[in-house]
C-alpha cells in the first residue's frame, strides 16, 4: 500500500513542478519560447541546412516552410496537445505557431510565437477532430468559468513546445549522414 501512496505522491509532485513552467512574453506582448544555443562545433551553413531539413523532412506532416535566407528559416506548424488522465488521455486540441530560426557563426537562436489554440471535439466515430477552424490566441485572458481548463492548456502547450525545442536542438546537433552510416553497419558472425 505504501508503494501505491508513494507512486501517487510522485505523480502529484511531477504534476506540480510541471505547472510552474510558463511562457515569457515578447516585445509585442505575445507568448514566446526563445532559445539561444552556442554551437561552435558546427558550421553556420550546416546548421541552416539541418534547420531546413527539420522542417521539410522530420516534421513535414505538421510544418510548412514559409521563407528561407542564408541565415534564417521561417516556418509555420501545428502540434497536438494532449489531455492526460493519469495514464491515458486523448488529444484536447492543437496549437498553430510560427517558428523563426536565425544563425550566426558559432551560435543560433530560435523562437516559437503567434500561438493559436484550436480545441478538439470527439466526432461521431470516436475520433478527436478540430471543433472550429478559427484559433484563439494563447495570450487571451479566459473568463472565470474557463480559467482552470485554460491553465491546463497553457501547461500542456508549454511542455509540448519545450519538448519540440529539445528535439530541434538535438536535430541540429546531429550529423544525419553519419547516423545513417552507423545504422547501416552490419555485424557478421562469419569471422571473429
Amino acid at each position: 500500500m505504501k508503494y501505491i501512496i508513494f507512486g501517487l505522491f510522485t505523480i502529484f509532485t511531477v504534476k506540480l513542478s510541471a505547472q510552474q513552467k510558463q511562457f515569457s512574453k515578447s516585445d509585442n506582448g505575445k507568448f514566446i519560447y526563445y532559445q539561444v544555443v552556442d554551437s561552435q562545433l558546427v558550421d553556420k551553413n550546416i546548421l541552416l541546412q539541418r534547420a531546413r531539413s527539420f522542417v521539410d523532412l522530420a516534421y513535414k506532416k505538421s510544418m510548412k516552410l514559409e521563407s528561407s535566407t542564408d541565415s534564417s528559416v521561417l516556418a509555420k506548424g501545428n502540434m497536438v496537445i494532449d489531455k492526460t488522465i493519469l495514464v491515458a488521455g486523448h488529444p484536447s486540441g492543437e496549437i498553430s505557431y510560427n517558428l523563426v530560426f536565425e544563425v550566426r557563426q558559432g551560435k543560433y537562436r530560435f523562437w516559437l510565437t503567434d500561438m493559436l489554440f484550436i480545441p478538439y471535439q470527439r466526432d461521431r466515430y470516436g475520433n478527436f477532430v478540430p471543433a472550429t477552424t478559427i484559433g484563439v490566441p494563447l495570450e487571451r485572458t479566459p473568463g472565470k468559468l474557463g480559467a482552470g481548463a485554460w491553465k491546463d492548456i497553457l501547461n500542456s502547450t508549454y511542455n509540448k513546445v519545450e519538448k519540440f525545442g529539445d528535439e530541434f536542438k538535438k536535430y541540429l546537433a546531429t550529423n544525419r549522414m553519419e547516423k545513417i552510416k552507423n545504422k547501416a553497419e552490419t555485424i557478421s558472425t562469419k569471422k571473429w
Partner: protein
Amino acid sequence: MKKFLTAIFAMASTTCALAQETTSSPLEISGSVDTYFKYDFAKNPLNSKTSFVTDHNSVSLGMIDIALKKKTGKASFVGELSFGPRGQSQSIPDAAAGGSSFNIQNLYVNYDFTDEFSMTAGYMGTFIGYEVISPVGNFNYSTSYLFTNGPFQNAGIKATYKFSDKASLMAGLFNDWNVYSATRGVSAIGGQLMVAPVEGWTAYINALSGAGFGGYGTIVDLTTAYQITEKFKLALNAANYDIKDNAVPGSYAGAALYPQYAVSDAVTLGLRGEYFKFKAAGAVPETAFTAVTLTANIKSGGLTFIPEVRLDHNKDKPFFNKSGAAAPNGGQFSLAAVYAF
C-alpha cells in the same frame, strides 16, 4: 481499491512499455456522463416526439459513455460503449432485450493504406445527418425529428479516399440500420462526398440505399456547417427518405437550421428551427411538424450546462394539453448537465 490501483499501474507500465517498442499511439480514453431535468408545459411525457429527454418533472439519467481508441502503425480501433437510458433502450439496439443492457456506439477497425486511402469495418455512428446519440456531439440536448427518424448507426465496411483537405469520398456496403448483425444481409450501399469550399465551411452530401426502416428505401442527406466568424456558426441539415413500398409509412422529408452565437468564452446561444413531414402512405395521410428550440451551452472545464426551451407544432394535434385532450402544440423546458472527459 488496492487491486484497482495496482491494475491501473500495471496497465500504465504496459502501455509505456509498448510505446517504447512500437510506433503506436497511447491508448486514448474518453467519454461523457449526462443527466437532465425536464418539465413538460402540459405535464405529459408523451409530448416528446423525438429521441431522449423523455421523462417529465424528473431528474433523469442520460448515459455514461466510454470510448477507447488506439493506433498502431497504420491500424487503429475504436470501441465505444454506453450505459443508461440514452445509451440503452432509447438507442434502439439493446444487447439484452428489455432495456437492461448497453449500446455499442462504435466498434470498428480502421487501416490507413496510404495518407489518402483508408478502409474501415465494424459498427459505426451513422454518416447520415447532423445530430448524434452522444450529448457531447450535439449543441441542443433534445434531438431533431430528422435525427430521430434517420439511422443512428450502420454496421458495414467502407473505403474513404481523401483527394485533399478540401474533398474526400466515402463508399461502403452496410447492413440494415441500427443492428449489430444483418437481418437482411449486407443489403445497403452508401456514400458520402465531403467538400470544404472555403476555410471553415464543410459540406457532406450523403446517400444510403437498401434495407432500412420500413423495408427497402433510399435516404439522401445534406449536412453542412460554416464557422462564419469566431463567434457565429451556421449549420444546416436537410434529408429525404423514400421507402420503396409506397404503402408503408415512414417516408419523410425535412430540414433543420442551426444558428449558434458565442456571447462569451463560456456561453453560446443556439437556435434550432426544423420543418419535418411524414409523407402520405397508403391510407395514412401526410403530417408535418415544425419545432423551434432555444438552447444555451454554458461551459466550465469539462462540464456543460444546457438549459433549453422547445416548442413543437403539428396541426394534426399529436400532442396533449394539461387536461389530456389532443393539442396542436407541445412545449418543454429542460436543464441538462453533460460532463465530457
